[in-house]
């Protein structure tokens, strides 16, 4: 059984403690940013930013909504990036936690291929082609701690635990959220280990909030080829 993170965006206040906690735990450098007319900063995920609270102003049913979406890797149950890489020294799944882990060896991969494989547009590359993204604080988790982002969250928007426990919590919170947000839904709960609850159409929060919404999630020819042979390859690895 994997570990999962459940993110209830309906109670996220965009304090961004999670975003800073992530940088702190991973000792990531700050990006040189400027304010471009929004509170959201940096503008996007990057090789140095694994977690980003996206902030969007939308008029929904004639009412202003400020939507907050703490974006990060979903740690897919069947991770397309892992399949695309087809190299466990570069991208592997920690079976104890379900975390999808990128190593330094990702620099040997075709970075654009891996990025294209992600339906949520998460991995980012460095100048040398090394890839990086959220690692679910796998080191913390192995030592009995929750991921840094979850620990930092003041409202209970971020939660962490066993997958079935988080799915249960997600269903419970979905039911509660529906009273205020009739269109509330969970995003790809069967496919991911970072399960989002949103109050409105997911596309309003982020272009890639949900899998298969837009151009991403398609696979390149090389990935398709590898997928075709992968069951065999898996057998051989065992």
């Amino acid at each position: 059984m994997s570990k999962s993170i459940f993110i209830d965006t309906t109670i996220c206040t965009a304090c961004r403690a999670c975003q800073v906690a992530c940088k702190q735990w991973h000792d990531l450098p700050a990006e040189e940013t400027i304010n471009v007319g929004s509170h959201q900063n940096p503008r996007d995920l990057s090789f140095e930013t694994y977690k980003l609270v996206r902030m969007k102003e939308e008029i929904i049913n004639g009412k202003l909504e400020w939507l907050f979406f703490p974006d990060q890797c979903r740690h897919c149950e069947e991770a397309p990036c892992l399949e695309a890489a087809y190299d466990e020294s570069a991208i592997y799944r920690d079976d104890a936690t379900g975390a999808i882990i990128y190593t330094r060896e990702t620099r040997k991969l075709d970075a654009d291929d891996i990025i294209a494989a992600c339906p949520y547009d998460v991995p980012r590359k460095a100048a040398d082609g090394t890839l990086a993204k959220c690692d679910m604080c796998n080191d913390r988790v192995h030592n009995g701690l929750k991921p840094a982002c979850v620990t930092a969250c003041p409202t209970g928007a971020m939660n962490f635990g066993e997958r079935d426990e988080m799915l249960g919590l997600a269903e419970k919170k979905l039911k509660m959220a529906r009273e205020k947000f009739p269109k509330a839904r969970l995003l790809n709960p069967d496919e991911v280990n970072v399960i989002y609850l949103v109050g409105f159409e997911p596309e309003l929060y982020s272009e890639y909030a949900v899998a298969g919404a837009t151009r991403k999630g398609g696979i390149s020819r090389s990935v398709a080829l590898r997928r075709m042979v992968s069951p065999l390859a898996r057998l051989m690895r065992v």
Partner: protein
Amino acid sequence: MTNHWIDIQNSDCILIMGSNAAENHPISFKYVTKAMEKGAPLINVDPRFTRTSAKADIYAALRSGTDIAFLGGMIKYILDNNLYNKEYTAAYTNASFLVDESFGFKDGLFSGYRKNSGDGPSMGGYDKSSWAFQMDDKGIPRMDKTLKDKHCVFQLMKKHYERYDIDTVVKVTGTAGKDLLKVYETYTATGKTGKAGTIMYAMGWTQHTVGTQMIRTMAMIQLLLGNMGVAGGGVNALRGESNVQGSTDHCLLWHIWPGYLKTARASNDTLEAYNKKYTPKSNDPLSANWWQNYPKYSVSLLKSFFGDKAIPENQFGYTWLPKVDDGAVYSWFDLFDAMYKGNLEGFFAWGQNPACSGSNASKIRKALEKLDWMVNVNIFDNETGSFWRGPGAEPSKIGTEVFMLPASVSVEKEGSITNSGRWMQWRYQGPKPLGNSRPDGDIIMELGHRIKEKYKASDGVFKHPILNLKWDYETNGAYDPHKAAKEINGYFVKDVTVKGKLCKKGTLVPSFAWLQADGSTSSGNWLYCNSYTEKGNMSARRSKKDAANNIGLYPEFAWCWPVNRRILYNRASVDPKGHPWDDKQWVIKFAGESKDGKYTSKKWLGDVPDGGWYPLENPDGTRRSDAKQPFIMRKHGFGQIFGPGRADGPFPEHYEPLECPVEKNYFSSRMVNPTAVVYSTKEDGHASCDPRFPFVGTTYRVSEHWQTGLMTRPQKWLMELQPNVFVEMSEELAKLRGIKNGERVLVSSARANLECTAIVTKRFKPFTIGYATVHQVGIPWHYGWRWPATGTEESANLLTPPAGDPNTRIPETKAFMVNVTKL
């Protein structure tokens, strides 16, 4: 806070107004969220749609500075629709009190007004004699419990707010009428017995020329709705720093001594005269009039100051204390005004950054140039310590000698902080102080020793207060926070029998009920007496066990003043017979025995009751003569709907900010609070209804920075989140000025110009005020030229005005006038 952070979870309706809790008190949202999950609606009223508004069930916009109009309208709505809690209002508030027949209010002025003929800064004041209550022949206030007498507070209030009808309120606030009604309807539903509404406010209310009265208006609403003393209710100030409550309790401000005792005035020439002046008298046996104990607290404080040297023969050292001239004011504004005028030689800037934090900061920066010396005690150099090399300063022409004393940060020190909920929490030292930085306690102790040595050596002028000051809070040469904490709690200075019990010399006083006025006890702050006793350091407790009522009081986690009472005025949470208004979320309940319809023994359950007396009534409804009214800190024991103590009137009245966008106040012909304070040097410019400054401006904070940014601007992870000072404006205003989102623009006021990055947003909308469109903009005040290194991100307080509230002299940084132009 009358209640505390966790208690927010018990609320049936939360109003966040005058604060932006989601952004500036993020942890509070843990409890706000809990209440909401139980079904409590969250209402947010703010000029700008914030991260708090984003979570609110109801959001209503209002123009900055019009909160009294908004809330005055709510009072009228409550009265018109009979929504007030009748039993509570009649029993526990002064609504039934009769006011002197000469009391009046006409066209914006209460009776007794006198315009200040001098050159200010106060615009005027009141002779309050006509605001007095009528007394019966025993000297007890006359009351009409039917609330019908035309001189009773209830009827006077009704008359006062008759003018605050929806149409007029809408014209002033710019709030949409339907939003206004929705807020009124939702919040006033908490007037029902058993329902509780809470208010979370902060500097959005305090920082106005009518700031105190904004809070008063809400306090009146809370009393009318029966929301004081109950779980999930109260009037809750969210303090702007983790220890603002503690520093206020221990007299950070000029006008008070520790524990809210009064600063002595020149005319209080003896201790007896001082105590007499500030000890209220009540002839009502049902009034606890707790401040009648004043002399016990003042004498115990003097004993703490001067130890063995404080004896009855020298009035316990009272004559050694400095006295403030009658009529003189030494508030922040006045100190910097005096400094600017060259009347101050030296200045300790200790843990603060006035060059960025003070309203009209340009004047403050110029004032610093007039000093002979300044000592900057801080963890980093800041805009204050470096004022002499700041923008526009000419170092060669500045004679101020500046010293920097590097201080340790909070986690490097042991000691306590007191949070907004009055919880004193002990903290331990983490890492050792870095480099040559030292804990503030050490710096103060050494400073005291050196000053004493100087006085001793040179036989200094008026040396007794210095030489006789007790100064022994060290262990092995270092400041000892436990010694200071024990001093604050207090101890018996000789063997003494109190309440029939022998208390040994040197033992810690168990609570302030044991303090004496004869010099046999010492206490550095009566309010904290009970915090560090022979049972140990109460503030270091960490039990997670809740009280019997299970409402999140956690009485054995840390310690709370007074006497660990977690919810103030909790005697008002029960009916006169001692039964909780709310059976499910009760705070206290009477559990004494009764016989033949009369209570025969005293026992209260739950929180520490606001006095352990019998309930006002027996089970059979007869009144008891040995009971006390619940509002024990008030002279008469009642919650004050009529507040004759305030400088600007017993009822809050809407006045426009000193700088406002309208030429007419729709409530009276008085534009500005007639008692406001306004400063008048050439650096104190202001402009109202001036076409050069057509837009309302306000300042605020963001989650990502802290105060003037001294601890956050050098922190790159936080600068990454909020790198630039910005100005938020509506799409409509941006269009009017041809401003594009994200471009740099100039914001100017009658004081200064400030370059900012424009955030053009749907979250600000133009207001319709009267019949005109009024735009508002907002700027965070966390920045200053020292960081980032570009020097381009300056303080928003360069723009803010030289005017303040008459009760507190807190500046009006939340409402002023600006222009915004393309660069």
